[in-house]
């Protein structure tokens, strides 16, 4: 039944034993080819995301074609499109709801840095509220750029130590409860 947080802590206490590193490798290999996405699509980049998943580029080749709209079943939070301040608490909530291990993929300039929307309503890069693993610039990025990012993420995941998990919740709490 999965791995509970307590077991993770034991692993962390044991440190870098050889067996654990080998296990990490196998787990990393498994994880890197099996991302279940949570597409958090808000804006223009979503159209490009359709293309990424579409026949021409085919995200499924990387084993990441199964979008799960329930955050519990997703591993990779694809933040696609501008995040406004109104949207930010929801993004944060979705991130907190995701089951470990989880990664965050910043898709497009708006998500990376706010892009051209340096104004009162736009979050200036989601890394101000969440930990982000890979940034893909472009407005919107070409599907090839997205795959570059995905390959980088796969590399990151393959070499991850299990002691990294759990990542826990986002460090911020919304100011207003709704």
């Amino acid at each position, binding site marked *: 039944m999965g791995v509970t947080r307590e077991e993770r802590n034991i692993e962390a206490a044991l440190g870098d034993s050889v067996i654990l590193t080998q296990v990490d490798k196998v787990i990393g290999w498994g994880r890197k080819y099996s991302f279940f996405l949570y597409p*958090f*699509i*808000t*804006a*223009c980049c*979503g*159209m*490009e995301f*359709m*293309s990424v*998943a*579409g*026949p*021409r580029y085919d995200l499924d080749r990387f084993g990441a074609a199964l979008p799960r*709209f329930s955050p519990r079943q997703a591993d990779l939070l694809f933040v696609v*499109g*501008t995040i*406004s301040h*109104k*949207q930010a608490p*929801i*993004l944060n909530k*979705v991130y907190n709801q995701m089951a470990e291990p989880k990664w965050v993929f910043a898709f497009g300039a708006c998500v990376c840095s706010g892009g*051209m*929307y340096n*104004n*009162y*309503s*736009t979050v200036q890069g989601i890394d101000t509220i969440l930990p982000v693993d890979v940034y893909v610039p472009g*407005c*919107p990025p*070409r599907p090839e750029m997205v795959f570059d990012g995905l390959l980088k993420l796969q590399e990151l995941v393959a070499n991850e130590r299990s002691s990294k998990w759990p990542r826990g919740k986002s460090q911020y709490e919304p100011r207003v409860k709704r």
Partner: protein
Amino acid sequence: MENRHQLDLNTELMVLNMGPSHPATHGTVRFFIKLDGEKIIHMETEIGYLHRAFEKHCEDGTWSKAFPYTDRLNYNSAPQNNVAYALAVEKLMGMADKVPARTVYIRTIMCELSRMADHYTNLGAATLELGALTAFLYFVEARELTWDLIESVCGARLTSNYVRIGGLASDLPEGFAGKVKEVFAKNRVFWDEFDKLLTKNRIFLDRMRDTGAISRDDAIAYAFTGPCLRAAGVEYDVRKASPYLAYGNVDFDIPVGTTGDNFDRYLVRMEEIRQSERIIEQCLAQMPSGPININDAAVRNPSKEEVKSNMASMIFHFKNTIEGIQVPKGEVYVPTEGSNGEVGFYLVSQGGGKPWKCRVRPPCFALTQAMGHMCKGSFLADIIPTFDMINLIGGECDR
């Protein structure tokens, strides 16, 4: 009557919060739904999750810097917004008739190409949310081919930033007409397959027909425009009512529905794709040669050669870029037919290089407003086709 029925069965109303991260709401809308079983008793729509301060940004920059922002209004059909904005500024400057004929035709072609791309996306996404993933991906590929055309002209797949005040960013590439022919031949196959898969499929028909219907009068009262209005049987299309660009010179049909339900909207959009192809083919046949920009250094940056060789041009180039194009005082409203409905730019200039106000009339805004009206009394599942056929584009609705 309804109350008594509820008392009899002693059902409890269920309040459901749908979105904004719900798969059917495109991430930008939240519905508060009161359900009696699966029936919608009351529905409220909340938008604004993609408010990106379009107007404030336009007021912040020069006239020509607004183009990238207009791209991202209706991002499915960026060239249309570019064109609409350029037309408004040109009209405000009183030089609408000085734009070269070739530019007019190229703009028409780009408008129609993006309309096709928009409808492909919209219809595809609608079927995706109704569960037919395969049909969706056929249209994604068709859109991909259309985008290839747009990219070969504009240099970007989605956010084209192609039109300029008094001209265009670049000329059509060599051999464009031939490529268009190839792509259209392929797209027609996809269109036919999509049509065969869905139009007469009873499952699809039952989902679409008589759901989300709006009467003619209600559609007018809610200021519907575009395919949704025409589906309700109102004969109104800006391209016909007040022809702009080259629409007066081409022959095409404007599909009109009868009942204003989702199925009519679907049919109207399907037909518009075919008509757009017709318009483009005619435009390509009529395409005049010549320049694509106004030869007026105060409006359109002069060519690079001239900037390098001519001091006056150089000064204009610097002034246009730094201070912005000087637009006389005044105000203007220019309606154009976007893929979702009337996209109108209302510009106010107080003189100088920056817009005082740059307002866009968002067709989706008015359409989304009627969601509660259209969905009342129908089932939870009917929200999906209705909302898809409204074609809410966050960038345009929330700006």
